[in-house]
């Protein structure tokens, strides 16, 4: 609050004082009092007035600054009414009461929304677990076929089931990618094992897309969550199969020790990504030229990858040349005292 703003609010009081001063001056002059005496009185009056307003201004200013400071310290600013302290002025008390009441209704609205969201999330989670049952059953039926003809049909259904499974997993991880959800267990993880499990999970889809994969993982272990890593790697492998150049494709997975960590590169020989689009591939809902023209993309897969990577402390980056290759690099940090 500036001094002018303060004085503007105090305009009536100022005007009353000024007119009173004028009236007194006129009265005293008319009563024959010496002009120097009148001026002395007016100067004294004005002096007291200035001191009065200056003190009041300083006090009000400090009061608002304190509230301002509290407001900035709060991580939930809407709780201000509860913590702003008891003012001495009854006008301020009134305002505080109004702020508190208004905030209370906001808090109630937020609680209600949070509850609704929580319920919805719980429903989605349980739905995902339920829908996995029929997928499992269908996959088992397919895998149990031994007759050549039936096997051929099963080989057409299995990749579709694999796609479905991945979509369902995406929904689950999307629901879990929220900051409040802490469902991961960081432990020493063997990258090669994670890679093999990921490939096994997407086997039917990758075979149906006629992919060849080379795995060279001569790096140390990393600290991460295997389940989350599998999901992240699945998205990258599926993308490589989706955006292959011809009717078959090649993926090279390379794990190497680098300074302070391990770098895992997944490189394909696919259609690549335009230079102008590569910086946006991890954005939510970004589909790009490839996503629109080739496979129907939702723009969720890589977005989730980056989000999960951030939570696991993995650095994810992409490099590509259009028509040549796409490479996704995952860099796992490792503490310096690991080797000691």
């Amino acid at each position, binding site marked *: 609050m500036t001094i002018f703003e303060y004085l503007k609010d105090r305009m009536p009081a100022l005007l009353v004082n000024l007119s009173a001063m004028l009236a007194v001056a006129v009265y005293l002059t008319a009563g024959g009092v010496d002009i120097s005496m009148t001026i002395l009185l007016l100067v004294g009056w004005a002096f007291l007035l200035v001191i009065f307003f200056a003190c009041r201004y300083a006090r009000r200013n400090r009061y608002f600054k304190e509230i301002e400071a509290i407001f900035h310290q709060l991580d939930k600013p809407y709780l201000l009414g509860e913590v702003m302290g008891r003012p001495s002025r009854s006008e301020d008390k009134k305002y505080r009461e109004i702020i508190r009441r208004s905030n209370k209704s906001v808090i109630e609205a937020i609680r209600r929304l949070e509850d609704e969201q929580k319920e919805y999330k719980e429903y989605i989670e349980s739905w995902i*677990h*339920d829908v*996995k*049952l*029929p*997928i*499992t*059953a269908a*996959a*088992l*039926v397919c*895998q*149990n076929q*031994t007759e*050549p003809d039936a*096997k*051929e049909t099963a*080989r057409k259904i299995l990749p579709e*089931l694999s796609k479905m*499974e991945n979509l369902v997993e995406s929904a689950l991880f999307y629901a879990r990618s929220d900051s409040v959800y802490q*469902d*991961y*267990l960081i432990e020493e993880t063997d990258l090669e094992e994670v890679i*093999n*499990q990921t*490939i*096994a*999970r997407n*086997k039917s889809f*990758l*075979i149906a897309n*006629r*992919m*060849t*994969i*080379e*795995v060279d993982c001569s790096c140390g272990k990393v600290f991460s*969550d295997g*389940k989350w890593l599998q999901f992240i790697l699945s998205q990258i492998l599926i993308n490589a199969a989706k955006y292959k150049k011809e009717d*078959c494709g090649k993926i090279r997975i390379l794990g190497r020790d680098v300074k302070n960590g391990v770098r895992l590169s997944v490189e394909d020989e696919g259609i690549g990504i335009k230079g102008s689009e590569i910086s946006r591939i991890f954005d939510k809902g970004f589909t790009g030229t490839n996503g629109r023209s080739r496979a129907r993309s939702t723009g969720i897969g890589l977005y989730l990858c980056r989000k999960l990577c951030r939570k696991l402390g993995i650095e994810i980056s992409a490099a590509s040349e259009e028509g040549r290759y796409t490479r996704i690099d995952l860099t796992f940090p490792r503490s310096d005292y690991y080797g000691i």
Partner: protein
Amino acid sequence: MYKIMIVEDDETIRTELQLMLKNALYESVAATEFTDLPEQIKKESPDLVLLDINLPDQSGLSVCRKLRQFSDVPVIFVTSKNTSMDELECITSGGDDYVSKPYQAPILLARIAAVLKRTGKKNEQEVTAITYKDVTLDLLACTVSYEGKESELSKNEFRILTYLFSHTGQVVSRMDLIEYLWDNQVFIDDNTLSVNMTRLRGKLADIGVADLIETKRGLGYKL
């Protein structure tokens, strides 16, 4: 033959699991009533139990805890829940392993084999070499030999030959072969398989074995 008991309330999954285990040469029994499960398991005395966590009216975890009071039969939990907490609970309840749905049949079979091996229930001698028509495939050294001549095989060639040697007399389709290779960490496509096949035949010819692998056009290969 190992006897595996399935405790799973979804009927389709139950019957398909039984079929899968039968195909993998395991004997299987399935619980159809979900009362007194620990007693039932005790009566059947299987070598391994596949236990679902979400059972009607009870949790697989509590079944396992009760079972542990009198038996140390290996238990693999099978569930559609897959949070880290669930995993932890499975282990603390006395489970030996944990597989989450939807699982791939080869993965589940591999886990079963691993648990059986780990818990020391091993009854067959491991095969170290297979011989067919005087051609010997050494499973430890990854070599193939014929009349004293030996040739070293690459990982891919070795896996291809292992599969053909274990299916002698049968026509093996290219797709079956590719799926087997993928289950054994050789991730190749049709074209690469043809290249590997040609190289393998070359190596066999070098040690004097010609026409060991027959090509059945449109069907696959036969040994």
